[in-house]
């Protein structure tokens, strides 16, 4: 069963992510895909995550497919202009990559090439709109015809916790209007605050037009916790979560992080309109079975 079918069937979807290697081999992706294959519906292949140059997302997506795991190809607006982005969608679709996740992307300042030219020719709303027009209207931004059109399931991201609070659900609304069919959110550490955002999302009726997957991360070390709190743009770690993880011995931080993630998943699954979870565990894929087990989430393999 594909991610799209899982969501359409009303089942609880689980996605995770794999960050491609900094090297000319898909081996690490194949290994990680084997770890995740029986636990998730699909896996995001990040696009030069954190503005660090890595193996291309489309190549990583092909490797995941070869390993029997459905990919979600991430596509940021940071490094490519409208010509390259449209071209990449055609290539990805031609090679069988169906799920495409569109995002603005981190600024180059945060990565290993801070001196690079930030492209941002399109923003995420414009890119979604463009890709949808290619698929549904069979046209490029230039107005020229696309034949045959790409077949894709379009995703977006949203950060429910970043200011302006009054605009975050509306912003998702713009993405849905532009073409987003599913959304994966930024890390949720505070299920209650997420619930408030979901109430706004429901008021706008967005949960009926777009599948919402809540982002859940597993903190694997105290160092990672500090990094996440202080260095990752847009991530907010509430004080009680911080204290809880700080309160255990360093060697048990990973186990406590996994427990916290499992509890968060249970809380999120109970919120009306949440269609699944997205596990933000790049580099920590081995934690996935434990977290899902702890949360009591079993991806039904029947029909696959």
């Amino acid at each position, binding site marked *: 069963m594909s991610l799209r079918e899982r969501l359409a069937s009303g089942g609880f979807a689980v996605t995770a992510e794999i960050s491609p290697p900094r090297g000319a081999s898909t081996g690490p992706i194949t290994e990680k895909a084997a770890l995740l294959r029986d636990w998730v519906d699909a896996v995001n292949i990040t696009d030069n995550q954190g503005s660090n140059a890595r193996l291309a997302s489309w190549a990583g997506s092909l490797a995941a497919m070869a390993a029997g795991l459905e990919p979600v190809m991430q596509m940021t607006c940071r490094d490519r202009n*409208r010509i390259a982005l449209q071209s990449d969608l055609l290539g990805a679709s031609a090679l069988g990559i169906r799920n495409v996740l569109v995002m603005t992307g981190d600024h180059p300042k*945060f990565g290993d090439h801070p001196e690079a030219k930030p492209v941002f020719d*399109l923003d995420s709303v414009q890119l979604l709109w463009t890709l949808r027009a290619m698929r549904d209207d069979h046209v490029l931004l230039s107005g020229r015809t696309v034949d045959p059109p790409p077949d894709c399931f379009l995703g977006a991201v949203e950060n429910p916790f*970043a*200011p*302006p609070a009054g605009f975050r659900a509306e912003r998702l609304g713009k993405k849905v*209007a532009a073409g987003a069919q599913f959304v994966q959110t930024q890390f949720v550490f505070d299920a209650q605050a997420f619930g408030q955002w979901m109430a706004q999302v429901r008021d706008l009726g967005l949960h009926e*037009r777009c599948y919402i997957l809540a982002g859940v991360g597993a903190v694997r070390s105290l160092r990672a916790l500090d990094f996440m709190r202080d260095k990752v743009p*847009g991530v907010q770690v509430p004080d009680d979560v911080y204290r809880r993880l700080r309160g255990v011995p360093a060697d048990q931080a990973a186990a406590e992080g996994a427990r916290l993630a499992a509890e968060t998943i249970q809380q999120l699954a109970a919120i009306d309109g949440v269609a699944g979870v997205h596990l933000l565990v790049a580099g920590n894929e081995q934690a996935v079975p434990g977290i899902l087990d702890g949360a009591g989430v079993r991806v039904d393999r029947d029909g696959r």
Partner: protein
Amino acid sequence: MTTRPPVPARPRLGARLAYRVQRTLRPRISLRWLSARIEASRPARALFTGAERQAKQDLFGCRMCGQCALPVTGYVCPMGCPKELRNGPCGGVGADGSCEVYPALRCVWVEAYERAASQGRAADLRLLHRPIDHRRWGESSWLNYWQGRDEGLWAAAVGDTGHEGPSTNSTNHRRRVLGGS
């Protein structure tokens, strides 16, 4: 055309006053006629564009993209966003409303939202902005506005149907205006 990287700028003109000034600048026959005359003369056009550049740079940190979004962004320039986002803030805005790239500065979209909301114009931020035309950097956006060349810059986000495509490509735009598909 532009060499200055985008940096969030805080407008020096109050939101209320900005909307009031906007009302006097709306396209009308007189302004259409005047702008056509200005465009017809190269020195007049250069002079006018230079004056616009100076005024909008001082007031809004304008970078002269030539396709102004200010009337629907609470008069906060989105081209000051380091990612030049035209459709709202990225996910990296700090909890205090700061820009992720320039933490000492305020996110232009946080500012835009507050200013628009303060004048009852928060709904403006729902508009879907089409990709900009990079050939138009350095042009006068006032002349473009009065000449009606800005009409396709954004569309109402009315849902899954009812709004046209994402392209501002002139051929498409003409076709649309003429009622084609």
